[in-house]
């Protein structure tokens, strides 16, 4: 079992203190139970939780014996035929209202809350609370219900077991079904299908009839997205490797991924199909995982087309991990265009802003390093102030993106920035001469170039040298002793002694499974990506909607304790880079890997 890595969420256990939902009765307990049952898939490492874990197992076994009110139906048919309504203009109006808060007329959506608080435009859009999937979320003790058609229109059910719908937090069983008329009343007047007031959080919207029809059509259309790569017993995932990816890292990453999938599939799969029925949701959580390795070829301009062909041939639910070289932009674009979650690839140059949705990254890579170096330069005292910066990077490598980001960050601060591109095979010595007279030198170089510095005299003490830790090999960078006094490393991960307890489990896992450790961070990050996916999926039960996977990761990531190389991972709507900071460090000794941090963890 690969992913015993997280602390249990307390959220299902805490009774919602002032939940004004008339259904509250058993709902908290049911949620609590569900948390426990699912917990068995991945929980937890802490000894303090062992008794809890034991109880979870007991309960799990009890459930297998046939708990009567436990679970939603195992597998819901993905949807009716998809593809209807895509070219229907009314549906686009519905999408614009839901996602952007724009009415059919182009005017901003208007809404008020009780007590007169007004909302307008994007701030009033449904997507804020109900999320891109329309499946809602939990925010503190408030539960935001799912509002896709089938969650509103389903017939009244006695309990969750009788409800033929994938489970989400805000699901409600014993309520009159909505009709188009009562949905409209809920949106305009804040009354539910039974005429009772909705939550205080739900605004009342001012929508004309045509817009209302379009919006309700969109809510129904949300159900028609057919999940890709989801079969009754198999979940398909892909990993993507660019042709310029480092071959050693490629092997290291694939070893981890393949072993993780093997381990995942050994766990209690057993005779799945015969047991699949309403009450046996547990088994469906354990679909087999299948990995597809998509290796790209040729120039980057052709990658997106290749990926579309791969996706057509091998539909996958999500892209997991992956390995890039100089650019990841075509893969990022593919994920956004195809609306496919792309989870935590190993890339030094992630692209896209916080406004994109489907690509999640562990950190901003060299772009974060550039921000850390810029902060260090700009925060320096006036006396030591840097007036000019000279950067060196090799053509066709990630350093170019780092150098551009640093130049941009220093641009409006009166600092002269020059950059020198080294062609393949060109020696470093000559390029360094061009930097004479600048008072900061920034090296975006790989270990071979760093080692070659030994033959070159270090610059005078008045020059601060910065180097990319990620490109140079972090604490294993072969920086010659003569350069160690003046050189600082951008270090966008936690310090070795502090991250040890968070990566030991992964490295022990590699050792036991005879996986050679050839690229420590790539392999630890790959293992982390797998663990995050496994953990999130175990909470999604059978709700296989790509957007919902992304949303669950956004919401759950912060609870993770074993965060690998990173001290803390957080995401949210509009956050796409999970670790946000780093250190500027020096080597402590003339030889060896001991580091000294210049300051506390910095968030630029």
């Amino acid at each position: 079992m690969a992913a015993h890595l997280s602390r249990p969420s307390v959220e299902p256990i805490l009774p919602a203190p002032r939940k004004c939902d008339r259904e509250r009765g058993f709902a908290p307990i049911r949620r609590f139970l569900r948390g426990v049952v699912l917990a068995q898939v991945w929980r937890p490492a802490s000894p303090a939780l062992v008794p809890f874990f034991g109880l979870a197992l007991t309960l799990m076994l009890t459930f297998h014996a046939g708990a009567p009110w436990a679970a939603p139906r195992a597998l819901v048919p993905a949807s009716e035929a998809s593809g209807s309504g895509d070219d229907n203009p009314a549906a686009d109006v519905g999408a614009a209202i839901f996602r952007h808060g724009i009415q059919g007329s182009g005017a901003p959506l208007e809404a008020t809350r009780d007590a007169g608080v007004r909302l307008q435009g994007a701030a009033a859009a449904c997507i804020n609370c109900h999320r891109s999937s329309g499946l809602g979320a939990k925010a503190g003790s408030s539960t935001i219900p799912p509002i896709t058609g089938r969650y509103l229109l389903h017939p009244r059910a006695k309990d969750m077991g009788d409800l033929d719908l994938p489970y989400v937090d805000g699901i409600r069983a014993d309520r009159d079904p909505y009709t188009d008329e009562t949905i409209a009343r809920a949106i305009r007047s804040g009354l539910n299908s039974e005429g009772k007031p909705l939550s205080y959080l739900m605004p009342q919207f001012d929508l004309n009839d045509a817009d209302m029809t379009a919006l309700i059509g969109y809510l129904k259309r949300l159900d028609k997205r057919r999940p890709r790569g989801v079969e009754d017993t198999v979940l398909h995932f892909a990993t993507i490797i660019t042709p310029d990816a480092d071959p050693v890292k490629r092997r290291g990453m694939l070893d981890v991924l393949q072993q993780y999938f093997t381990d995942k599939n050994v766990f209690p799969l057993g005779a799945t199909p015969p047991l699949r029925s309403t009450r046996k949701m547990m088994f469906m959580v354990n679909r087999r995982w299948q990995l597809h390795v998509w290796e790209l070829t040729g120039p980057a301009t052709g990658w997106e087309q290749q990926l579309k062909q791969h996706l057509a041939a091998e539909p996958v639910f999500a892209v997991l991990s992956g390995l890039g070289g100089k650019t990841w932009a075509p893969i990022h674009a593919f994920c956004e265009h195809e609306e496919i979650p792309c989870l935590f690839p190993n890339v030094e140059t992630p692209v896209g802003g916080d406004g994109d949705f489907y690509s999640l990254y562990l950190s901003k890579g060299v772009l974060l390093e550039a921000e850390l170096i810029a902060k260090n330069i700009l925060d320096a005292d006036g006396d030591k102030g840097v007036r000019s910066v000279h950067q060196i990077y090799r053509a066709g490598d990630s350093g170019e993106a780092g150098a551009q980001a640093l130049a941009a960050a220093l641009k409006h601060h009166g600092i002269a920035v020059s950059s020198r591109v080294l062609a393949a095979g060109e020696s470093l010595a000559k390029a360094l001469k061009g930097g004479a007279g600048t008072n900061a030198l920034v090296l975006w170089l790989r270990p071979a170039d760093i080692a070659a510095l030994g033959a070159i005299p270090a610059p005078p003490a008045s020059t601060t040298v910065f180097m990319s830790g990620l490109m140079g090999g972090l604490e294993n960078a072969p920086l010659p002793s003569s350069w160690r006094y003046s050189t600082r490393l951008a270090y966008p991960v936690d310090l070795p002694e502090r991250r040890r307890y968070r990566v030991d489990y992964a490295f022990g896992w590699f050792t036991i499974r005879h996986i050679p450790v050839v690229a420590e961070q790539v392999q630890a990050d790959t293992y982390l990506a797998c663990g995050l996916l496994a953990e999130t999926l175990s909470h999604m039960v059978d709700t296989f909607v790509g957007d919902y996977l992304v949303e669950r990761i956004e919401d759950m990531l912060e609870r993770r304790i074993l965060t690998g190389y990173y001290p803390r991972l957080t995401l949210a709507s509009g956050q796409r880079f999970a670790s946000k900071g780093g250190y500027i460090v020096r080597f402590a000794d003339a030889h060896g890997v001991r580091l000294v941090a210049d300051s506390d963890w910095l968030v630029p």
Partner: protein
Amino acid sequence: MKTVIQSLVAALALTAMGTIAPLAHAAGVSAISAPDPHAHHHHMMSEIMRSTVDYTPPPVSLVREDGKAVSLISELNDGRPVILTFIYTTCTSICPMISQTLSQLQSDLGSDRNKVHMMSISIDPEQDTPARLTEYAKKYGAGPEWQHYTGTVEASVATQRAFDVYRGDKMNHNPVTLLRAAPGKPWLRIDGFATVAELLGAYHELVAAK
């Protein structure tokens, strides 16, 4: 079997509540703790809970939206009545509600607006840089009496703990507004979505009693 499971579940749930519930009041409620008598006035379901509590703010340094490092205690103790909340800028459900309410409270305070200090502290401080807080403050029309604060994760968590609003992660956070008439006075804590009118009423009560 069903009965067995249900009793097991009930026992577990009770145990869990028993373990966790006291944490929720760790800060020690000193005076009253009662449902808001006006709660029934709400058309929708905004139930609030008022309590009077003594909190000891930690001696931490925060970073204000203008980029300046400030002491939390000095910011709280500048002599003005304080209205304190906790938010994060990428929050899409609870925090916009809180910030919209404070935004309107600013104008409804009338001439008292210049006498109060409204403080919103980020519970997602690594994301909420001073620049993002400035943008957020602008979005809600924050006047000179309303500041937003970030800082290290440690400083934010210590502050949240001191005011008993720390719930492990930002998605677990619940709406809480804290009001205090003057340094040395106890805090009035309002759990739940307090309306502008309720906050205004609470403010006038506190200031009149000062």
